[in-house]
């Protein structure tokens, strides 16, 4: 198991070099997005018949910003605790990952549409995301759930926030700059997933325990 320092935007080659179990330190600008954000992106930008240039101007601007940030970029399933200082600037106080599987119905389309190279979260994702990772060259990066103060330390700057009033603090798009954000690759671009391996092994263990009572 190797260890890598990656700079965002990440190239397809760099992603395809990764294998499950590798430790990665991420550097650069990432965007948080969870339940409300995924639903919003899907409904307004991705699975819509309307052309995106007919969007209201604020949504159009957000779409353009997301397109530039997420091409080769990374989305983070996270609803942070934030603090605003006297100057009005935002700081991340606690920022661990949230459970990713809720975004399974959306993530493959988000990866394909924006050209994402990575998704950070916890708990792993399902077969559709795994297929998208292989097809488009992306990886699922597992952060340690609950390690919120430690991860907040890796967040060096909050660059922008979008949809805060509409979605609330936990659900907003926070654009942040991170340095040496520690993650483990648990789904790679070769079709491997630690989560499906552990699920299969633990199922066999469960069957043994239930048979042996």
């Amino acid at each position, binding site marked *: 198991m190797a260890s890598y320092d990656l700079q965002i935007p990440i190239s397809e080659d760099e992603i395809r070099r990764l294998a499950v179990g590798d430790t990665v330190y991420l550097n650069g600008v990432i965007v948080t997005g969870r339940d409300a954000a995924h639903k919003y992106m899907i409904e307004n930008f991705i699975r819509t018949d309307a052309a995106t240039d007919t969007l209201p101007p604020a949504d159009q601007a957000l779409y353009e910003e997301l397109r530039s940030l997420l091409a080769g970029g990374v989305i983070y399933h996270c609803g942070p*605790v934030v603090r605003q200082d006297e100057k009005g600037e935002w700081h991340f106080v606690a920022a661990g990952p949230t459970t990713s599987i809720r975004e399974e119905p959306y993530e493959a389309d988000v990866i394909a549409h924006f050209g994402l190279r990575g998704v950070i979260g916890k708990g792993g994702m399902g077969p559709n995301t795994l297929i998208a990772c292989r097809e488009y060259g992306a990886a699922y990066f597992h952060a340690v759930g609950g390690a919120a103060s430690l991860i907040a330390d890796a967040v060096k700057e909050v660059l922008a926030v979008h949809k805060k009033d509409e979605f*609330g*603090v936990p659900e907003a798009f926070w654009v942040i700059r991170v340095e040496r954000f*520690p993650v*483990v690759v648990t789904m790679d671009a070769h079709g491997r997933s*630690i989560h499906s391996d552990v699920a299969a092994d633990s199922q066999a263990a469960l069957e043994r325990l239930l048979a042996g009572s």
Partner: protein
Amino acid sequence: MENLVEHFVELIRRASTDLPADVEAALREAKEREADGSAAAGALTTILENVALARANSTPICQDTGVPIFYVFYPPGRGISTHQFRRQAEEAVAEATRRAYLRPNAVDALTGQNSGNNLGQGFPTFHFEEWERDDIRVNLLLKGGGSENVGVQYKLPDARLQAGRDLEGVRRAVLDAVYQAQGKGCAPAILGVALGSDRGYGYVHAKEQLFRPLGDVNAEPTLAALEERLLRECNELGVGPMGFGGRTTVLGVKIGAYHRLPACYFVSVAYMCWACRRASMTIYNNGEVEYD
């Protein structure tokens, strides 16, 4: 009634930022059990570093500070009004949110609007009980959504699990709950389990079990034996910290038994993540406050 707002804020701060010593010790022991260089050992190392950092900086251990759940025991004749008590605790919750000990978590189920201060319909939650002692005891649990989502209530018999209405059925249900959760509830977990009761109180009692220290041995020998067996067997599932695979999936199993209806046999499993944020305070008659 005396003003307890600052005490409530301090209780919330402690719950959110300072992991109980027994849980931290159990995590440390778990790390020793995992293979050097494994993802499981790495996750536990990160967890322990984070616990120390959160305590030192007085910042939340986990950003999902959950639903604050208050269990309050109060004496007769000390002028306690549960209404005023609730109002003061709510004021403290809003203040703790301003001080970033809590994330604003109360979302209107109809509009999707976040109230911004952790207050809303039935949010936070309170359970009041008058008792014989002359001090006030407040137990607070901050339980995050990831772990709450993997909690499960079984109705025995359960044909899929071949689980009948007996302790073997309970065992099968609990093992299934931990298997189903995989890493999604932030293993290693602490399980609070309630046998019997109704559907609503089943979970209330299951969460009460989470206040028992990990080293606490059940006074009921049958349950003590089941707790010990389930702790061992849950760890044999091999889900491991964060679901990375490994030797520690569960840090403790705490079970309470309650009377049930003849027709009902519920097994309610409250799955608490490793960040078991429980804190308690005792307010004595002379006004002194002790946190533990």
